């Protein structure tokens, strides 16, 4: 099993979600992060204080999948999140030692496959 982490633009988050659902990915977690990459920094001014905002808002997806789904997931993330302009984000794939479903205690592949409830 792998843990796929995808960082994308907030305005693309819904497109990514749709792409993931279409690809049959059913479990995922999402959070807001701020990222720095090759994007242009923006300058902001508050009264006499001028600042360079080095970070842009991004959305981070965290998705545990069984091996066979890794490529699909990466593809969904990268196609759903792409605009072609700098700042589109990154995808990271890590190996997962194990997965447990809290509700049932099921382990590993069992736990990343949706169960009918």
């Amino acid at each position, binding site marked *: 099993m792998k843990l796929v982490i995808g960082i994308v633009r*907030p305005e693309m*988050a*819904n497109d990514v979600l*749709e792409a993931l*659902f279409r690809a049959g*990915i*059913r479990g995922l977690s*999402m959070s*807001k992060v701020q990222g720095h990459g090759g994007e242009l920094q923006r300058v902001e001014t508050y009264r006499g204080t001028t600042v360079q905002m080095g970070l842009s808002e991004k*959305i981070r997806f965290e998705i545990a999948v069984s091996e066979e789904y890794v490529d699909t997931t990466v593809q969904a993330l990268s196609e759903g999140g792409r605009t072609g302009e700098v700042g589109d984000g990154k995808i990271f794939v890590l190996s997962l030692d194990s997965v447990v479903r809290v509700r049932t205690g099921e382990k590993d592949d069992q736990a990343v496959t949706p169960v009918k409830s």
Partner: protein
Amino acid sequence: MIDTGDTAWMLMATALVLMMTPALGLFYAGLVRSKNTLNTFMMSIAALGVATICWAFVGYSIAFSGGEGGFIGNLDLAFLNGVGYEPRDGTAIPELLFMAFQGSFCILTAALVSGAVVERIRFGPYLIFIALWSTLVYPVMAHWAFGGGFLATAGTLDFAGGISVEMASGFSALAAALLIGARKDYGRQALLPHNSVFVLLGAGLLWFGWFGFNGGSGFAAGEIGVLAFTNTLLAPACTLVAWFVLDLLRGGKVTAVGAATAVIVGCVAITPAAGYISPIWAMVLGTIAAIPSYLIIVWRPRTRVDETLDVLGAHGVAGIVGIIFIGFFAQESWNGISDGLLYGNAAQLGHQLLAVLVAPAYAFVSTFLILKLLSLAAPLRASGREEAVGMDVVQHGEEAYVSGEGALLIKVGSGDGESEKLLKTG
């Protein structure tokens, strides 16, 4: 004869009191958890709708018609029948304005009660509850003290609502909390105010509105109104400082939520007494009123009574303090009506104690009965699971703070609904 100055002030005072209800919504909304924000705010907004209508239809008549010394008015003025430009006796403003001013009190008081049952009561039954409450509880108690009812004729002094507003809301809140029961996480988890800026701003706006509430209760831009107004500045200021001291004694730190609470307590305490006592006595009242309310608000969460936003501690108790205080310190040289014990009129204290006996009892019992009856018709509170999800989503289908990610548009009438299907099978 209508006096333009009196009318100008009463128009403004009425607007101020009406503003207090959304301000209360904000105050209460800040005190609950974020998943119950809108629901809590909506309980106040709903009062602006429901209680207003009940007031115009029958409430005003129940409160302000009928003979002297009764328990309840009649329906002579129902549906605003005959309520027009002609002033009521003793005032120089159109009765229509008098009706609106008094109505704003009913609305606010109904909203106050909601503080006892936030985060768990279902919104539908709540709407029916405030309709009944603002018909059967507030107007009756207002009749006693303001509408020529038995307390008024007995000589009880209540300037701006220690009886029908403060004791009524406080003891109704207690009844409601007991009947509805505690939140499922009460006493097990820390249930904290999610936005104390709203609490402070709400308290600030409530104080602002209270100048109209008390200052307008003389129905004129005259001496008594000015006295009441000034006392509404002085008393809460003293309560605030007293609360700082109590906070310091207790935990070494002055708290902001405490300060907001102090403002309310101070305003409540001066409410019945505002037009009857001298400014210096008002400062004394403000100071000492802090103590019982503080103690109750600190002690109550250790009990099993989840009277969530402490309406009893802040309103009921401080209202009693204010009502009794009049019995001691009323001064005819200031109010032109009556002296208290300290100025030689011991009877006044008796009149005041009468109110303290009957008002809490009626408020508690009538509210309890109303809710009990309602509970036979429909469950009053949300299920444990709904409580866990939060009342905003469950009762209103909304969230207070939405970021928009993960929200898929449902295109009504678009026919394809593809994304929904995806989501549903997902």
